[in-house]
């Protein structure tokens, strides 16, 4: 293991220098890069990367890494935001994960994206531990963007419950995942249950899945918990359920729960009387994949997504 200073964020004189470190394992070849927190509320993503560093350190010391493995893990590049409890760049609220591939001579977050991308470029595989813009809980899964360069079949090698295929929208074209693919890295986004909190169980599941991925490609020899049979699913095939009333959201089912038609997934209550304004019922059989975690919910908003037939 080698801890390496990748770059410094300089915001003197009001902030002290902020070093961004990467942890390297194996040889100098660029086999796999794992990116943790880019946003200031991605505690879980930082924690997963940190746990991966912990596990890889022991595995490397025991000689479990193959000679072909060259791994970089960056647990956090969001200290400037994390330390002041802001999700985005605090000055102008711009999102570094909407600035890739970055621009060396551009504005602040474009330069930061450039520095991150420079460190992460040229790897055969890339895994971004990331979060969604909507606060909510997921069944842990791998997400692959359909760019034309994607290697979605490799997403099955993580052994997570689902492999979600997403057709990119315009704002996706400036994310790390999309640009990794454009620059010929086989890129995956890994989502777990939590975001601005830590869920140790799903975090360990994510770490196991990354190690399993390495093992499946002959880069690691280790005893690992067996993975699940991954179900591929195009995002457009999910059943989505919305609020037609506003109020307090009380989930009745949770990610991973099985449902049949007619099951109440969530209730929306009048915030002043607790009268039930709406029962959101599943119209399909399947598994709850995503559930909003917001307690206050407006009208016309996604409450949950269900993967049919699972």
């Amino acid at each position, binding site marked *: 293991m080698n801890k390496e200073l990748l770059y410094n964020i*300089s*915001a*003197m*004189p*009001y902030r002290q220098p902020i070093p961004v470190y990467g942890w390297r394992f194996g040889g100098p070849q660029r086999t796999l890069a794992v990116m943790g927190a880019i946003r200031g509320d991605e505690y879980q993503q930082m924690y997963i990367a940190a746990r991966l560093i912990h596990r890889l350190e022991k595995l490397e010391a025991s000689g479990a890494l193959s000679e072909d493995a060259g791994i970089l893990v960056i647990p956090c590049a969001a200290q400037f935001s994390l330390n002041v409890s802001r*999700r*985005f760049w605090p*000055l*102008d*609220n711009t*999102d570094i994960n*909407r600035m890739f591939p970055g621009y060396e*001579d*551009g*504005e*602040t*977050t*474009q*330069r*930061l994206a450039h520095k991150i991308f420079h460190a992460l470029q040229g790897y055969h595989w890339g895994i971004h531990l990331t979060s969604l*813009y*909507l606060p909510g809980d997921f069944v842990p899964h791998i997400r692959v963007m359909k760019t034309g360069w994607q290697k979605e079949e490799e997403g099955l090698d993580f052994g997570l419950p689902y492999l979600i295929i997403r057709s990119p*929208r*315009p*704002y996706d*074209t*400036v994310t790390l995942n999309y640009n990794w693919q454009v620059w010929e890295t086989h890129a995956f986004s890994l989502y777990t249950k939590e975001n601005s909190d830590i869920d140790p169980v799903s975090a360990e599941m994510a770490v196991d899945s990354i190690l399993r991925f390495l093992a499946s490609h002959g880069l690691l020899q280790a005893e690992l918990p067996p993975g699940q049979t991954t179900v591929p699913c195009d995002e457009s095939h999910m059943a*989505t359920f*919305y609020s037609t*009333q*506003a*109020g*307090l959201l009380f989930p009745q089912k949770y990610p991973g729960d099985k449902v049949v038609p007619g099951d109440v997934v969530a209730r929306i209550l009048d*915030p*002043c009387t607790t009268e039930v304004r709406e029962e959101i019922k599943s119209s399909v059989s399947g598994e709850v994949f995503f559930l909003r975690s917001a307690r*206050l*919910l*407006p*009208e*016309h*908003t*996604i409450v949950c997504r269900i993967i049919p037939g699972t």
Partner: protein
Amino acid sequence: MLQEVVSAHLPVGEKLAIQKNRIAGAHPEARRIAVVTGTHGDELEGQYVAWKLARLLEKKRDRLHGTVDIYPALNPLGISTIYRGLPGFDLDMNRIFPGSSTETMYEHIAQGIVRDIAGADLCIDIHASNIFLREIPQIRINEKNAQELLPLAHFLNMDFVWVHGAATVLESTLAYSLNDMGTPTLVVEMGVGMRITESYGNQLIYGIFAVMNHLGMLDEPFIPVAPPIVSTDGHVAFVNAAESGIFLPRVSHAERVEKGQTIGIVSNPFTGEISEKLLSPISGMVFTLREYPLVNEGSLIARVLGGAAS
């Protein structure tokens, strides 16, 4: 007459409503223009334009042909909370158009706005930079639509027209969406966030009357306007800070500068030192100038238009 464009219930006893002020003259169906503003909650220059335009149009109603729809606040929650983005939602409102009925409340709102404006003879989308930068009155046009929009832009009495390159991420803006649907839309940028520059507003209102005259919507003698400088006649140079600190300008906004002239300094209040002198890379006119003093590495300081303006 105030009309509701689209609405949604908020969680606790309140409705989010997008409203427009419809001012109709003779033959209201003959022609329609839409004047929209307030997409970003910290941009207030358009509030003055909406107010003054409504007052002046009431006085001109007997000479008005067709309909003028004024949308003062596409993001009323942002304006009411002095928040640039969409309160409670991570995306910039100008990155969610043309909206959707299957995602979130704000995308539902965006869809309702686009549907209401679509089909207008012209849409004028007024922005006010942000709190960091001051802009001269200008129009921004995506090069994809330049041929169609430049002739209309010449009537709007703005000082400058910037024809910029196409970027995929900008496909989510209101202007792109409307232009893509065949509704000609001009983006106005002027002034600075959180402030109102009445002279800029009056200049634009004069231009709105000129373009209405051109479209046959005002039964008044033709109003001559000064032709704008067009970016394709010259080229735009950017000046970014290399150091963090407090920016102090050494030129005035809209001033002509020579190549190598000091635009400003980055000062260090902790030591009394000058961290950086920022020099103009070309001779030309400073059409964008840093307004907010705090800068980080990469912060945009100025844009200079060289060539035809020099």
